[in-house]
């Protein structure tokens, strides 16, 4: 919501007050604005100055109001400044130069939506702000150049959108991973259908490496999706990590020691987006899934279902988008060696406690489970030539195109009824499904999960109907064990 900054200068003892539910950073603006105005060569009015940030009941924070406050005060003294249809963003330095602030892109988009036509920002923020559609962005280096522009005496540097899509950082290629055919296949299916995956395997088997290659299987983001992602990164002030114009899906891999606020969003004052929002339109990789606390995993449930997260703080509740593919990795058991050449030393009781930890909160949202065995040295050196990511990505894109844009979140987002309609299972596949329900004790949820994955497998194979083979393969990656 745009904030209106008003200034009043009255007779009385010299003083400077800022009101309007401000935070500490805005109160300190008084000590920046006063010298900045002086050092820009203007006079700070030696009277009683009151600045109001409206609407007054809305909490405000950050240093981005400095420029607007200074401009409002100068306008109160000098009616020749023309402010119509203009918005200001930027932090002032004591020498009156402008410093960049975070969150410029989402603010520019919001101002454009509110009908503001022009926006003055620090030059360093100009190209970022220019990514927003429908608003003219002007970059100012100092308070003085900004004021001269407002008097109609000078001009500002127009913000230019950097049109060339930047490539993100280099993405590890899947060809770098030897063997692991099952895991690679599961990741291919996940990329094609947007399914969440759990990889289990002993330590050192290559789960992390596989997960890091996963983004390379995903197609480029559409430009509006990329802008949404850039807006989130802008809020966190981490656009340096990720160029705003890159079309590659983001990849986030928070460590299990992360705080709950760091993971889902939060913090003091207005909630900041967390890792799950930074992974929006991309991949959230949780290594050692079972080491995350139960509360952390519980907190993922809502975002996994609604593709957004609402963080309520004392002052306001904020909703951030959080539509990501979850890749989880975990050891098969506490000692990590279940099913490995080295024997497992866990008690059965420990095993079930360990499995319950994942199964509780987010099992419902994981469509594919695959085990990643430790590679033998022989396999590492003598493996066949591995398929490069680009080839797999080609298949993924073809499969996604088959489904068309109608499937918002890929096959993973289909409801039960949609799944049944989309699957168009052949009669033999239906028989197989009925048999599996009986033999493998599939729950209703498990049934739909298998069918969704089978739909994606059929998409990859270019088939209109889900056949026996696709269904049987999907059953292999199911999360539920018989008995």
């Amino acid at each position, binding site marked *: 919501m745009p904030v209106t900054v008003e200034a009043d200068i009255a007779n009385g003892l010299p003083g400077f007050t800022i009101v309007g539910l401000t935070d500490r950073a805005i109160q300190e603006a008084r000590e920046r604005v006063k010298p900045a105005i002086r050092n820009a060569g203007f006079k700070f009015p030696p009277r009683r100055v009151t600045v109001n940030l409206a609407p007054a009941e809305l909490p405000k924070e950050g240093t981005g109001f400095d420029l607007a406050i200074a401009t409002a005060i100068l306008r109160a003294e000098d009616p020749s400044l023309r402010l119509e249809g203009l918005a200001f963003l930027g932090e002032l330095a004591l020498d009156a130069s402008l410093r960049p602030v975070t969150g410029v892109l989402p603010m520019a988009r919001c101002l454009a939506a509110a009908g503001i036509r022009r926006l003055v920002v620090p030059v360093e923020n100009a190209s970022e702000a220019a990514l927003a559609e429908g608003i003219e962005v002007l970059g100012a280096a100092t308070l003085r150049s900004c004021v001269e522009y407002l008097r109609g005496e000078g001009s500002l540097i127009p913000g230019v959108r950097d049109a060339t899509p930047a490539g993100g950082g280099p993405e590890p290629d899947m060809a770098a991973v030897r063997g692991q055919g099952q895991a690679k296949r599961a990741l291919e299916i996940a990329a094609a259908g947007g399914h969440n995956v759990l990889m289990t395997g002993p330590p050192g088997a290559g789960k992390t490496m596989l997960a890091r290659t996963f983004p390379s299987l995903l197609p480029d983001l559409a430009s509006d999706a990329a802008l949404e992602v850039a807006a989130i990164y802008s809020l966190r002030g981490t656009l340096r990590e990720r160029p705003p114009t890159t079309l590659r899906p983001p990849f986030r891999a928070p460590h299990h020691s992360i705080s709950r606020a760091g993971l889902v969003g939060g913090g003091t004052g207005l909630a900041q987006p967390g890792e799950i929002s930074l992974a929006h339109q991309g991949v959230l990789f949780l290594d050692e899934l079972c080491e995350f606390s139960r509360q952390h995993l519980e907190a993922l449930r809502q975002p996994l279902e609604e593709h957004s997260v609402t963080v309520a703080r004392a002052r306001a509740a904020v909703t951030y988008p959080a539509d990501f593919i979850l890749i989880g990795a975990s050891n098969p*058991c506490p000692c990590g060696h279940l099913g490995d050449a080295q024997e497992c030393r866990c*008690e059965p009781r420990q095993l079930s406690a360990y499995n319950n930890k994942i199964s509780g909160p987010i099992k419902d949202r994981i469509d594919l489970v695959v085990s990643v065995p430790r590679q033998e040295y022989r396999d590492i050196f003598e493996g066949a030539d591995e398929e490069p990511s680009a080839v797999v990505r080609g298949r993924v894109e073809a499969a996604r195109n088959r489904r068309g844009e109608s499937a918002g979140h890929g096959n993973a987002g289909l409801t039960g009824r949609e799944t049944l309609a989309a699957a168009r299972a052949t009669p033999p596949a239906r028989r197989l499904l009925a048999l599996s329900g009986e033999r*493998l004790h599939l729950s209703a949820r498990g049934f739909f999960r298998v069918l969704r994955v089978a739909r994606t497998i059929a998409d990859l194979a270019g088939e209109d109907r889900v056949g026996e083979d696709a*269904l*049987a393969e999907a059953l292999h990656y199911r999360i539920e064990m018989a008995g």
Partner: protein
Amino acid sequence: MTLPRWIDPASPDWPVRLLHLESPPQGFWQLGTIGALSPCVAIVGSRRATFAGVEIARSIASELASAGIQVVSGMALGIDAAAHSGALDAGGSTVAVLGCGVDVCYPTRHAELRSRIITDGCLITEEPPGTPPFKHNFPKRNRIIAALAHAVVVVEATERSGALSTARWAADLGREVLAVPGSIRSRQSSGTNLLIRDGVRPFLGIGDLIDAVPELRSAIPEAALDTLPASHGGGLERFSPPLREILARMGTQPVHPDQVGLALGLSPALVASRLSALELAGAVMSLPGGLVARTV
């Protein structure tokens, strides 16, 4: 409600076979509806058994139960529990010989199994009611298992397993002992493999057991005998050639699907769908940890 009964050599229900022991119990407490029958077979093994071992114990027990043979074991975790529940699932009767009081549930996790055993079999112990499961009680109870049974099948045991003590008692009493062979790399089969090396008869299928124990042969009706599988393995003709090809490459030792794919030059997608087909046919089971093992 069933109450525990004290059974001593004067009782008509006293199993005479216990007198084969050099130091037979003075008597024992029994809780359940069906006492120890004759003939019966003990299935024992490691508490920390592998999934394949548990499955084997369960299937031997249900084959015996469906042929009308009672299964004896010690109600411990792992193989013992699988033997009891395998027999009960097949509608048979089973006897659990305990190392604690007849009213004590140990391990506590087996409360449900315990009540099923009381309904369709019985609990037997020479310890007075209320006795906690002292460590030194278990070797004593092993001798009762060995004496009650006409034959002892050891499914999985490490070299230090209590199941080997049961096997030793049984051998001393002249009972037939059979051991399920395992991979030489599997620690859980090291004890059973040692038994085989020392001259114990390997158990390859229920036929081996029946051939070795005349009492069993005469107790099982001819008709039931015909339906029992002669030995494990074989009978793969019912699968299509692509599925047979996979089975042929798998042992009861669990393997990772990727190994199957590499060995046969099949794509991961194909391996996954064929393994599911085999699993639905009951020929393969998938284990926690992502491995698969043959069950036929």
